[in-house]
């Protein structure tokens, strides 16, 4: 019998397209050593990360209710398949949904609000505060005592 090797701890990193994805990519050094799967909204992103599992879900924002349901369904399936130990997101709607489901499973969660939100937190970022154990803004001016906190930025 072969000795049981404990599996590496697994992180699911979620971001929608464009700037959110690029900000997530800039966090990769912190993810080294863990088993990381990514989830976004463009299948083309798999080509950028040939050695990782990259899932694609429907893109949506809060103003399209049906779209949000499709995204939620996609995220739920990815979580069920991946069974991550921790969920991290740089926004927006898909990441917010991922944190919501992850929290219901009792998983630790991280929200990093986009650096594009320099004057007010994003809508999904405000909601994410309820589901994020580590709730960060990238602008010191937006930090508050109970969160979001400021711990540097992607720049």
């Amino acid at each position, binding site marked *: 019998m072969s000795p049981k090797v404990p599996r*590496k*701890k697994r*992180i699911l990193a979620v971001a929608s*397209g*464009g*700037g*959110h*994805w*690029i*900000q997530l990519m*800039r*966090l*990769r*050094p*912190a*993810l*080294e*050593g*863990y088993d990381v799967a990514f989830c976004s909204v*463009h299948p*083309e*992103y798999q*080509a*950028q990360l040939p050695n990782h599992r990259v899932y694609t879900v429907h893109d949506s924002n809060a103003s399209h209710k049906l779209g949000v349901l499709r995204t939620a369904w996609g995220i739920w399936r990815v979580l069920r398949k991946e069974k991550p*130990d*921790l969920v*991290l997101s740089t926004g927006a709607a898909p990441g917010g949904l991922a944190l919501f489901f992850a929290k219901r499973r009792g998983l*630790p969660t*991280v929200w*990093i609000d*986009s*650096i*594009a*939100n*320099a*004057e*007010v937190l*994003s809508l999904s970022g405000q909601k994410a505060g309820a589901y994020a*154990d*580590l709730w*960060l803004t*990238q*602008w010191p001016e937006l930090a508050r005592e109970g969160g979001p906190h400021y*711990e*540097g*930025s*992607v*720049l």
Partner: protein
Amino acid sequence: MILVTVGTQGPFDRLVRTVDAWAQQHPEWSCFAQIGAGEYEPTAMEFARTLDPNRFEELLQEARMVIAHAGMGTILKALELGKPVLVMPRRASLGEQRNEHQLATAEKLGGRGLVQVAMDEAELSERLAQIDTWVASKPIAESASPELLGALRAFFRQHLGEP
């Protein structure tokens, strides 16, 4: 080559039209524009409505400078490659965006000297007239600030143990 890009959040004809007008007067510059769902079609620039992320990166590599909406994705990618970037913010008041976050992005990053900013078409034309003076900045680091990476590592260690 100058890369002009408006991202994926719908049309931004004010930007495309202004650069196209300049390009008509300056055939010595070749321009490529990604124009999204804009109504205005450039006459002096090659253009595409959308670009897949990998093609976009190729064009960015080739570009000598970048003129863009104030979207963080474009800005970060261009800065990683050390390309000079001029941004004009989309305005919610003109229906170009859902809120005024690009205005804030432009002001804050402009204030830190990371990008050049044109607040409107007139300023964009002024900047274009001085294009020979644009200088490439040193490329930014390829990853987030050590402070942010450290905070994440500490949180991961606390909840997942050593990697």
